[in-house]
């Protein structure tokens, strides 16, 4: 099964209808699919933290928001995740390309790659690591249910080998 197709199908199954994005090489195909889908509002943003602000507003307006980003963007968004999402109890689905993991060709990606799970832990954000496209199909809709039930962000970390 195609990895991008699996994540796209899972996002649709979850009912996500509002997506902000910043690219990663591994998210390219998925971003195209989201852009082409007339039932999803897609907002490319300039920085991930900005994207989280837009997602918060979209949730207040009745949407089910998600963000597509590289894990580096998590570092750019820590304050928004704490002082907006945790404070007001706002759900969002965070689909993250997890660079700096096994198979990484670029050494520069490794420090943030290693820090990523610890940053999520520090923020008490639940996250999942689907290893195969079939896993993503099941895990992503469940992750969104948890986000809605908890009123909190939930992360999906997609390592290099996933793609």
């Amino acid at each position, binding site marked *: 099964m195609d990895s991008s197709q699996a994540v796209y199908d899972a996002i649709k199954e979850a009912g996500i209808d*509002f997506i902000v994005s910043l690219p990663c090489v591994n998210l390219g195909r998925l971003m195209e699919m989201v852009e082409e889908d007339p039932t999803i*509002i897609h*907002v*490319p*943003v*300039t*920085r991930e*933290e*900005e*994207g*989280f*602000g*837009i*997602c*918060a*507003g*979209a*949730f*207040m*307006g*009745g*949407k089910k*928001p998600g963000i597509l980003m590289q894990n580096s963007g998590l570092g750019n968004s820590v*304050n*928004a995740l*704490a*002082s*907006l999402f945790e*404070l*007001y*109890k*706002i759900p969002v689905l965070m689909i993250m390309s997890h660079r700096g993991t096994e198979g990484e060709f670029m050494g520069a990606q490794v420090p943030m790659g290693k820090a990523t799970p610890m940053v999520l832990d520090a923020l008490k954000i639940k996250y999942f690591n689907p290893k195969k496209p079939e896993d993503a199909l099941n895990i992503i809709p469940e992750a969104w249910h948890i986000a809605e039930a908890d009123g909190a962000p939930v992360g999906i970390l997609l390592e290099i080998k996933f793609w």
Partner: protein
Amino acid sequence: MKRIDAIKKLSYELTDELVVCNIGFPSREMHHVKDSPNQFYMMGSMGLASSIGLGVAMSTTKRVVVIDGDGSVLMNMGSMVTVYNQNPKNLVWVVLDNECYGSTGSQCTYASSFELGDVARSIGFKNVFSFDLNSEFDFSKVLGSEGPVFVHLKVEPGNADVPVIPMEPEEIMDRFIQTIRE
């Protein structure tokens, strides 16, 4: 004009608009002038007022007014190009510019060194209103314009002596969401 006087003028013209109000004293002053379930008060995430406002504007047909500050805009200037490109017809973005970080002790920002309204014009915003300290601020004309509207209003530094907002964050958001759904 003091910021709270600008907020009073603005508040007087509001009817059923949704308002996203910036962190710190701007929210406290807004709450003190006139509280309403239509108003979302930020208690954190400095810089994201316009982003939250854009998300709300893109999810509803109601008119959305963002009350922002110069220090906060400088923290998230990319939002100006995102808002312009998304082109929300129902968004009015008001920047109350006192050229300082008013809620932390009035340390200077760089806002005195350039014209924020000119930045908006150069990005492509069609409806940009610039008011200096001495100009008459007519908010009814602003509210009647098609979005995205960018308003740059110079105000004097300093905060009004108003209390903190006696509401929990969830309470602020829940009633705001109820208002949107009505």
